[in-house]
């Protein structure tokens, strides 16, 4: 980087890290280095405060009472929905359904929208790099209906084989479910192009945005996807809250996922008239605090400026990639040209779990395992990898500590 931006200067002065109280602690005698951001990100004070304030001052049930607290809770909850709408550039807030997370969002679409429309022999297309949460719900839908699952291959560096993907699509393809960014490899998929290809054969597309949302700016209208799913906790918000966005016309024609309170217009024992969007899909008391916390996380991310974040994270990714490569014996798995800051790597003889334990001993938190992507691991012919996933609150100095610790791992096994 030729010129150091004010944002990077701010980070280097430690001003962004101070927003995250959890980062300031010792682990096994060393300052914590948190490199497991693809599993879940840490929360800024503003998100923690939003949860505390809600429970301290505004807690009530939404959309029910006529009293002041209920009105406040409802306003905060719906304001969070509007923040989500702006964040993903959706046309209408009512198209943004609050769910528990990406997994629930995908299950909702698979069971309520896709399965009832599938006929035996019709096809759903996925990619080789999907997370289990974007595989298993589709397998369940196929099992229920006799439809078939097709898997688009990836190259050895972890990029989708676009030609093969296109060849796999036909008038028989009813639905396509693809990740915008791979949790295991970091690969950013050309989803806009893939959506265009899918639409050309008449298939609808769900984009799994769990790993993309914390790093990339999302515009569901520009992508032209039909459904978009993401989780709050992977983008600095609380756990247990996520979003399913869907085109209004599609959501309108989808049967409700769960029945209960909140999702009805009129109930008799003979018959129920469902509520409109988004309530139709939000049966029961929702995760009100979680939604408000997610809204606070969106505010926080936007206050940093998503472009600043992307530039700095790209810089960290390059720095970390070189740092890992500089330690002899480690190989990076997944070397796509376009990546979110996620680096999977392996050592010739040392198992990722042993790497993970030794790094933890140095205060460095990484993930080791199959990253809920066993079919991908099989394809790459590894049982597991070690994974470093970065955030804008990470620093060059932390990456240098990683490189030193990776050297130490080798010494333990020397």
């Amino acid at each position, binding site marked *: 980087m030729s010129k150091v931006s004010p944002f990077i200067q701010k980070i280097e002065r430690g001003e962004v890290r101070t927003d995250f109280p959890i980062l300031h602690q010792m682990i096994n005698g060393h300052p914590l280095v948190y490199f497991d951001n693809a599993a879940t990100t840490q929360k800024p004070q503003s998100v923690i405060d939003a949860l505390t304030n809600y429970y301290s001052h505004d807690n009530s049930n939404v959309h029910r009472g006529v009293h002041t607290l209920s009105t406040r809770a409802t306003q905060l909850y719906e304001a969070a929905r509007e923040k989500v709408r702006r964040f993903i550039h959706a046309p209408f807030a009512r198209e943004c359904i609050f769910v528990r997370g990406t997994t629930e969002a995908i299950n909702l679409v698979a069971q309520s929208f896709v399965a009832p429309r599938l006929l035996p022999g019709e096809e759903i297309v996925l990619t080789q790099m999907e997370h289990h949460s974007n595989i298993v719900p589709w397998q369940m839908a196929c099992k229920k209906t006799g439809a078939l699952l097709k898997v688009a291959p990836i190259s050895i560096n972890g990029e989708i084989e676009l030609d093969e993907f296109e060849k796999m699509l036909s008038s028989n393809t009813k639905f396509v479910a693809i990740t915008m960014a791979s949790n295991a490899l970091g690969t950013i998929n050309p989803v806009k192009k893939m959506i265009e290809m899918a639409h050309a054969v008449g298939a609808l597309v769900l984009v799994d945005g769990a790993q993309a949302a914390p790093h990339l700016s999302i515009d569901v209208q520009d992508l032209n996807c039909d459904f978009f799913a993401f989780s709050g906790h992977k983008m600095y918000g609380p756990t247990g809250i996520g979003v399913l966005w869907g085109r209004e016309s599609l959501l309108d024609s989808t049967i409700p996922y769960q029945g209960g309170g909140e999702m009805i217009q009129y109930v008799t024992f003979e018959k129920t008239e469902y509520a409109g969007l988004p309530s139709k899909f939000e049966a029961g008391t929702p995760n009100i605090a979680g939604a408000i916390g997610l809204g606070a996380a969106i505010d926080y991310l936007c206050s940093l400026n998503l472009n600043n974040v992307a530039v700095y994270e790209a810089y960290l990714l390059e720095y970390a990639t070189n740092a890992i490569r500089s330690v002899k014996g480690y190989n990076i798995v997944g070397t796509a040209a376009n990546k979110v800051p996620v680096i999977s790597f392996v050592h010739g003889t*040392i198992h990722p*779990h*042993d790497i993970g*334990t030794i790094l933890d001993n140095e205060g460095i938190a990484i993930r080791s395992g*199959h990253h809920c992507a066993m079919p991908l691991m099989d394809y790459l012919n590894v049982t*597991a990898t070690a994974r470093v996933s970065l955030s804008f609150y990470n620093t060059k100095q932390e990456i240098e500590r990683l490189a030193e610790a990776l050297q130490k791992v080798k010494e333990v096994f020397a």
Partner: protein
Amino acid sequence: MLDLRELYQEIIIDHNRNPRNFREISHPTVEAKGYNPLCGDKLTVYLLLADGIVQDISFIGCGCAISKASASLMTDALKGKTVKQAHALFEQFHHMLTSDDEIQGMNIDKLTVLAGVRAYPARVKCATLAWHTLEAALKKQKVVVSTE
């Protein structure tokens, strides 16, 4: 701060690098597959039994240093033992990894080198995978066991 050498003792490093009895048995009395879905570790344990005595025992598979060393040490420890002794040893071994009791006084010989694992709760399953697989084999169930 935890001392890594408590976990990765020389004997463990050695058994990881040169696992003992790391082979198949062509006509085993019984065999079982073990699998740890957390890390993808897989192994198969083979047993040759006669008159309730472990005549031969071996394993193959892939896993971390702890799971491989533990499997290797297990096969060494069990050869020539009765099935009853094998069960008892597993119980003592499991107790060593999951209790706070003094290690001294536990009659499990070489297996105490794995005592360091108790300070790493996330790794206990690595150390017990081979043993759970053995238990499955002894139950003569040709099924995949899981540590979950």
